[in-house]
């Protein structure tokens, strides 16, 4: 009886695992088929890839190459800026008690509720008034701003797990505050900072709405907007959209899979609680 149940249970478990995983992979599979199809045959139904038109990938890459380059630039600058702003802030929030601390923590949480598109009509008008539409610096600042709260919370949780004793020793040795932060805290905070940096990088790389409202200059488009332009072209070039989409997901996917362990341990130590 027990034997039977476990065999049935195992079968059910494996079926569910496979079905859910197929669901997770289906859209990519559909895109791969089209990405390998010559343009003349795109409209034919294929359940399995029947062609091998690899040159589509070259066309796809050329079409969004500039977008990917821009996205990397925005993501890297925004990640660095976010870290520079959030590490010291999260550190003092985690280590010291002072008036207004609760207000700052609650305020950060509140920003998460009104993020994104809700503020963009205002930001658009403010940018317009300041003559800053198409300002790369302005957009990077907004991209940084929308990620700050999340990252400060991640670091705030992480720094609380570090032992205070090392810092006290360093301070007693006459180490300045900033030097202590850079020389003592940063070297032992690798995993926590990695999680925060990955989130900012990927979030910025994926951002669509902010540049949609604040950029009109196509040369400055990140890859999300380059790809959207392809979706709204008068003639849809499916065999180019497919490889472009597949190429575009490589950087965030690789980063995520590579740092999977860090992210899961980051989640258990304080990011989401």
């Amino acid at each position: 009886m027990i034997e039977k149940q476990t065999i049935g249970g195992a079968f059910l478990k494996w079926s569910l695992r496979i079905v859910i995983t197929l669901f997770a992979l289906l859209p990519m599979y559909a895109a791969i088929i089209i990405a390998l199809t010559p343009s003349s045959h795109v409209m034919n139904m294929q359940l399995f890839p029947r062609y091998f038109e690899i040159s589509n990938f070259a066309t796809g890459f050329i079409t969004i190459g500039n977008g990917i380059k821009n996205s990397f630039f925005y993501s890297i600058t925004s990640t660095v800026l976010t870290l520079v702003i959030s590490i010291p802030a999260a550190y003092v929030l985690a280590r010291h008690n002072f008036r207004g601390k609760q207000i700052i923590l609650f305020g950060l949480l509140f920003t998460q509720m009104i993020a994104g598109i809700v503020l963009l009509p205002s930001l658009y008008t403010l940018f317009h008034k300041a003559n800053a539409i198409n300002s790369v610096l302005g957009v990077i600042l907004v991209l940084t701003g929308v990620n700050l709260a999340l990252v400060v919370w991640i670091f705030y949780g992480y720094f609380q797990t570090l032992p205070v004793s090392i810092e006290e020793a360093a301070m007693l040795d006459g180490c300045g505050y900033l030097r202590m932060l850079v020389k003592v805290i940063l070297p032992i905070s690798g995993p926590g900072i990695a999680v925060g940096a990955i989130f900012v990088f990927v979030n910025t790389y994926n951002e669509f709405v902010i540049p949609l409202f604040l950029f009109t200059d196509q040369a400055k488009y990140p890859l999300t907007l380059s790809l959207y332009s392809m979706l709204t072209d008068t003639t849809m070039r499916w065999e180019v959209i497919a490889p472009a989409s597949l190429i575009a997901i490589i950087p965030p996917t690789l980063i995520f899979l590579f740092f999977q362990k860090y992210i899961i341990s980051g989640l258990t130590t304080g990011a989401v609680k």
Partner: protein
Amino acid sequence: MNKVLRRATFYSLMPLTVVIILIYLIPVLNVIMNAFTGFTGSSTGEFVGLANLAKIQAEIPKTTLTTLIWTMGSVIPAIILGLVLALLLHENFRLKKFFLAMNLVPYSIPLIIVASFWLFVFNQNFGILNGLLLALGITSKPITFLSYDNALTSVIIARIWRATPFAFINFYAALTTIPTDLYEAASVDGATPSQKFWHITLPLLKSVLSTTLIVLTVWTFLVFDIIYGMTGGGPVDATRIISVQIYKELFHFKDLGTASMWSLIAIVILTIITIIYWALFERKGKPDD
């Protein structure tokens, strides 16, 4: 607190505070002000009371309902699917790492590319879903997944696909923190697997469950990219949620007033939802804590 510390605290928090004021506080106040200001016709720049609300009044019920169906219709299935997946992948089995990685792939994909991927699945001519349904004999002619009647369901499926890994990874991480001796003790007492789930696993996942539910609800409520990329909010108004409405008022009708009124409506509804969740989980949480 000594002087050095006080200065360090001040300088550490200043950049953060400045950016938050610039990117959030000023725009939020601006949205509230603009929602009651006229931007079209003769009343440009004047306080117009509730005139902007009157202008969009006819669209409020339908758009709000669509937004709520979109939100709940994708968040609840994503959470259930994420939880099931976490339970299935948590135990040790062959190929565990492979399954884990494959199911995490959608997690980091840009939403606009989620839209593009699902267009390949739902396309009426070459869409693989129609191909599968026809091959399996489930349907005899291709289904128009992006028609007026089906479009909302289709965009919701795309959203479920993208939200599931987030729920999954949260539950998975939480499962790794549950001490195994709890289960061993329960086994000794003769507990069945389902008893273990309802009495050990689920209660311990409660705080993660509430966080995941609230975060996914807020995020999904304001998603723009998936719908804008797949249907543009159409056909007609079939998938027109509040975020699409905000964009259209601003860029198609050039009306900052009504766009801001929609933003304000979104903020109000999200606040109400958050309060409901909070009350629900706080009250339920009391006896245990």
